[in-house]
């Protein structure tokens, strides 16, 4: 049986005390243990940022890539070996600034990734510039006048891009966060989980005290239909005193990208023997240019 101790790495986190990344880290390990995925059966792919160091602190296959390129690298891993459960963990800058296009293309591809965004609504590792999810008006080193831009709405964008699983969770509720990840691990295609992750050092206005009184769980409403896209859009636009968390949208009727690739019928690409072309294969190739 897989336990959360299986994921213990010799490297200790360097996150600030109180950082919301601890909960995300724990939730990922718990969720994996819960669904019974062992360290060698998963790959944690990240970018660059505070949160993106997560794979270094976790005993599992991992790859810490480039800032903003988490999703395409993870897609390559998944296409080469769809026997691996590929999980992305990266920051809001990584995912929604440099990486926004990649995420939306991944969503329309419906590639089988669980994409967890450590959304502290600030640039942590580079010490406190505003991020795409920072509030309009937020003052930082690079927005001394208060940001002019509307924040990115990842939920609405993922829905608009055709994502088949769209969720939000937060670091203040470990068991709910774990549950959402477990649910995403059961999804066949692309699953976005935007996680409110308090950064206690550079974004104190959006710390635990901000979120705790505001968040409510969509799944607490028995009438909420996760397959209703318009309902999901409506909740995606909800912001202010009440902020919904949980699964906004989930449908299982669209095949994942991997399920559609004919070559994959024979199993993961990496598992197929790599051999020289057979004589009849060579012959067919030569005939094309005769």
């Amino acid at each position: 049986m897989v336990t959360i101790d299986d994921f213990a790495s010799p490297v200790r986190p360097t996150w600030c005390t109180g950082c919301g990344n601890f909960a995300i880290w724990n939730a990922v390990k718990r969720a994996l243990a819960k669904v019974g995925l062992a360290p060698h059966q998963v790959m944690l792919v990240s970018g660059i940022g505070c949160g993106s160091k997560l794979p270094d602190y976790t005993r599992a296959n991992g790859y810490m890539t480039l800032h903003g390129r988490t999703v395409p690298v993870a897609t390559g891993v998944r296409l080469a070996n769809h026997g691996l459960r590929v999980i992305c963990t990266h920051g809001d800058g990584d995912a929604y600034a440099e990486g926004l296009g990649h995420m939306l293309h991944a969503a329309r591809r419906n590639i089988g990734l669980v994409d967890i965004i450590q959304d502290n609504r600030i640039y942590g590792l580079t010490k406190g510039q505003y991020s795409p999810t920072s509030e309009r008006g937020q003052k930082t080193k690079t927005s001394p006048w208060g940001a002019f831009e509307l924040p990115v709405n990842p939920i609405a964008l993922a829905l608009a891009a055709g994502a088949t699983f769209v969720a939000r969770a937060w670091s203040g509720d470990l068991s709910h966060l774990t549950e959402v990840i477990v649910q995403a691990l059961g999804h066949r295609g692309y699953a976005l989980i935007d996680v409110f992750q308090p950064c206690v050092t550079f974004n104190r206005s959006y710390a635990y005290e901000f979120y705790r009184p505001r968040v409510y769980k969509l799944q607490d409403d028995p009438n909420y239909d996760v397959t209703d896209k318009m309902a999901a859009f409506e909740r995606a636009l909800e912001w202010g005193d009440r902020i919904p968390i949980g699964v906004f949208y989930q449908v299982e009727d669209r095949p994942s990208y991997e399920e559609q690739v004919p070559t994959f019928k024979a199993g993961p690409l990496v598992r197929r023997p790599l051999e020289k072309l057979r004589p009849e294969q060579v012959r067919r190739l030569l005939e094309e240019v005769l």
Partner: protein
Amino acid sequence: MQPTEELTIRIGGEAGMGLESSGVGFSKALVRGGLHVFGLPDYHSRIRGGHNFFSVRIARRPLYTHTEPVHLLLALDQETVRRHIGAVVPGGAVVYDEKDGLPEIPRRPDVGYFSIPLSQLAQEKGGNAIMRNTLIFAVAAGLIGFDPTYIEGVARDNFARKGQAVVDANLRVIQAGVEAARPFLADFPFRMEAVPNAPLRLLLNGNQAFAMGALAGGCRFVSGYPMTPGSPVLEWMAGHAEEYGAVTIQVEDEIAALCMAIGAGYAGVRAMAPTSGGGFSLMVEAMGLAGMTEVPVVVYEAQRPGPSTGLATRTEQGDLLFVLHASQGEFPRIILAPGTVEQSFEAGGRAFNFADRYQTPVLVLSDHYLANAVRDIAPQDLDFDAVVIDRGETLTDAELDALEGEYKRHRFTESGISPRAIPGHPKAIYASSSDEHDEYGHIEEDAENRRRMQEKRMRKLETARAEMRLPTRYGAEDADLTLIAWGSTYGPLREAVDRLNAQGRRARMLHFTDIWPVPKGVEEMLVGETVAVENNYSGQFADLLRMATGHTVSRRILKWDGRPLSPEYILHNVKSKT
């Protein structure tokens, strides 16, 4: 009339007239008829209009290059005559459409002007004036005395899937063309008859050869974004993926293309991203990721003239120093630049072995000229038998099962190469990082670790250097003039050397396919008068040689107008200054 040594037929017209596909079809017929060809397209970066042309050089001996003189000009518009009449040799001829007439420029007395009602005949016999291109090539066959049954055969093959009616229309048009040539036979002195029962030969261009080589060499993952002239490799692979157990994906941009290929390479599949210089510009950051995390990956970069968008459908060798230094910091990379169709095929296989053996990015540099020019070669010249799939120090499942202790993905070794586990085995769980890391892959900033890790990575370059090939020597053994070529200029230079030697000048060519790391022992080969011949503005390979070996070439023959080097251009420049 006696057979001609060689001749060049050029067809000209507008984009959208199908010059390239009919030109390649005609070339194929010639090859099936036992002749040797070199076919070169020349077209604009637009879908309609503009002046395009396709030249096919034909001979009874193997050809490696196009040349400048034209013997027969097939004009699908007046513009063709206007532009190319100067290139026609004395005794040569122009075939034009009666309907188009000739441009109002002086007629050359030494050239034949053959008016044929092309549109009318195509319409009458084929039911569509667009079939003029088939017709005019049939006229050409008639004029040079080439057996039209070969053309008919190609038409049958090409149009079979469109149904018998289309095939028949084509056959009628071909026959009409041959007949239309008859009245002019006496006025056209050049003949090139088919050689019956000649052994089968292939006709293909550099892109196709490279793609086949890559597939044979074990490439199973291709991620790309369309860009001339590199994207045909993506398209070729897409067309063959299902049958050969590969996967291709067209992605949102070139950043994603290389990142995905790296992800696939990391996960253990031989992966590649084909592109051109502009697309490669977007891959630069990911190059460093592969270098730092020691991931095998191949980039195929078919150059076109820059800077920036430049001339999308023209040729240049302008990206050499760029790809050599692309990405921040220092890491090993291997660069190959095939010069021929055969070498393109071979580079396909070699690139993936290098990538796996050195666990670092490998670049194959081609260009529009090599990528698109078609040449005939013997089937055995695509040497599938010689292809070896060598995964280097990749750990087998058995080796992984036997692993003791914590696996060190980036172990310090003398060769710089650390035995690699494909992720997924319970005994070798690791995470690599684009941050500097320790032997396990964990992020590590320590100065001593950094020093050693950087040395380890860079040592791979020295290990690789020992197996890089020295340049091919071609020409006089006792040459006092050495022409230095790299990549696609092999053909024009080879012929220039032949001609120089025929004229009594003791010349040779040194042709490099293995560019970086510079092979051991190059210095000793750079003796006498050395002339770098390059299809770029500054002589980048000469710069590279100077940087790497200290050798300063005697001079440089360069061309940067977006058109390929020809033997004539080289000879003219060799002579004008020697």
